[in-house]
């Protein structure tokens, strides 16, 4: 009995020491929701775009999220955070969208919005220009790289786009674009995500297919 108790104590101390000081477990912040990104983003205005969600582990899964933090006045940076399962599952549909924004007045928004919405209609960053019977947003020369960082491609938000986003913001509803062009299955998001990632989006492993592939590779 004593040996069993000693073994259990050793096991508990191994797990707790590993969690606390093992080099492989250090360096990654943990967030419960997108609101916790506030402690990681030190400069503003900025927006955090959810690039991908990963899991690690076979029996007990750990969830990670990769964000691209786009600043107005600095180069963007990528961060990977550990998160809880519920938040990771709920944010699956919002890949490619901004889950956290902080404006110049340090006002935080955690509503899922198309990336860069925080910079729209702000005279410090750009202006509306009239083309093809609509107003479109254009950044000033100093911020001309922002559309690249935000993953817009050739997309330029119209005034209608902006107004609809503000209505959704007031109603506290996520906004995925006028034609659902943002989000996990949105056209612009799919262009923005790296090609390898688009092909690897899958939810479960089919063992039958894996076994057939194994046989084909090794016993052809």
């Amino acid at each position, binding site marked *: 009995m004593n040996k069993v108790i000693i*073994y259990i104590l050793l096991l508990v101390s191994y797990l707790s020491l590993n969690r606390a000081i093992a080099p492989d477990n250090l360096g990654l912040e943990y967030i419960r929701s997108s609101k916790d990104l506030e402690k990681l983003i030190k400069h503003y205005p900025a927006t955090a775009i959810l690039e991908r969600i990963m899991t690690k582990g076979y029996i007990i899964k750990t969830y990670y999220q990769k964000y691209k933090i786009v600043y107005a006045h600095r180069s963007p940076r990528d961060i990977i955070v550990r998160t809880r399962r519920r938040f990771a599952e709920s944010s699956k549909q919002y890949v490619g969208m901004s889950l956290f924004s902080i404006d110049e007045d340090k006002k935080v928004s955690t509503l899922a919005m198309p990336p860069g919405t925080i910079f729209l209609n702000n005279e410090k960053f750009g202006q509306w220009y009239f083309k093809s019977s609509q107003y479109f947003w254009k950044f000033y020369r100093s911020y001309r790289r922002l559309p690249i960082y935000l993953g817009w491609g050739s997309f330029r938000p119209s005034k209608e786009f902006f107004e609809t986003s503000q209505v959704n913001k007031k109603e506290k509803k996520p906004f995925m674009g006028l034609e659902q062009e943002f989000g996990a299955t949105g056209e612009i998001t799919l262009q923005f995500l790296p090609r390898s990632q688009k092909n690897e989006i899958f939810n479960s492993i089919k063992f039958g297919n894996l076994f057939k592939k194994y046989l084909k590779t090794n016993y052809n």
Partner: protein
Amino acid sequence: MEEILDRFLIRIIFALFCCIILYAYKYSHFLFYRRSIKQVKNEFNLLENPSDTLHFLSRILGLAIIFSFVEFNRFLSVEVSLIHLSIVSLTIMISYLISLLIIEAIVLHKFNYRTEILKNNNFSYALIIFSLNISTAFIIKSILLHSQNSVLIFLTLWLFAMCLLGLIARLFNFYSRFQFNRNISQQSIGVAISFAFYILGTTYLLSKSFDQPHIEKYSYMLRIFFKVFLSVLIVPVFIAAIRFIFSLKMKKNLVQSYIEDKEKSISYGLAEGLVFLISAIMTSWIVFNINLTGVFTFV
């Protein structure tokens, strides 16, 4: 033909240089291992005292094991390589002899070479010294392989390894039913056999622990520590599993009598030692051959 003769001559030169190194090793005992100075001072009679023979020759064997790590891949000149070999061999000799002093002080602090070997001809003591010498040699060899030719890294890892090896050797009392000090003084061979297999198994695990990514020395040492800790957790699982699966039984009422008896203790020592060695090798497969890091699945 000239090339073949040239290569052969270079190997002979290196073999002769190794003999010079062995000669230097013999006299380094005067500085670093004075307790058994009698072995190197005068002629050594191999047949007089088998315990003393084992005690002495195991140290030479240990040096040879450590030397097996030295490699020459880019051979620039004979002189440069000989200088490199002399510096490395000096480091090996000094570190090995000091390591033996330290490990003997930790494990066999209640015993004395003169009393046990010269007076009592205690073969059990000699066998334990043999196993300690060989295990220390393997540990130093692993450290030299991973120290990346840096003296600082070597010294840091050497100190760390000595602490771990000493701790592991002291843990023998938790595993074995032998009363270590008492059975050695009774010259029981069984305890020596059990300890020899135990220390060889743990040395195998410890030397494999050094094979980690060399990123930063403190995180490297932490990784070694956690691998050793994990091995400590998994070895008992295999010991219990092997005993259960193969129905290995030892009648409880007979165990004590087997431990006390000098000749019967050999069978008990073999049983205990071999089960541990098998478990250690199986544990090394689980801990070191299964790489679970860095596999992400996209959601």
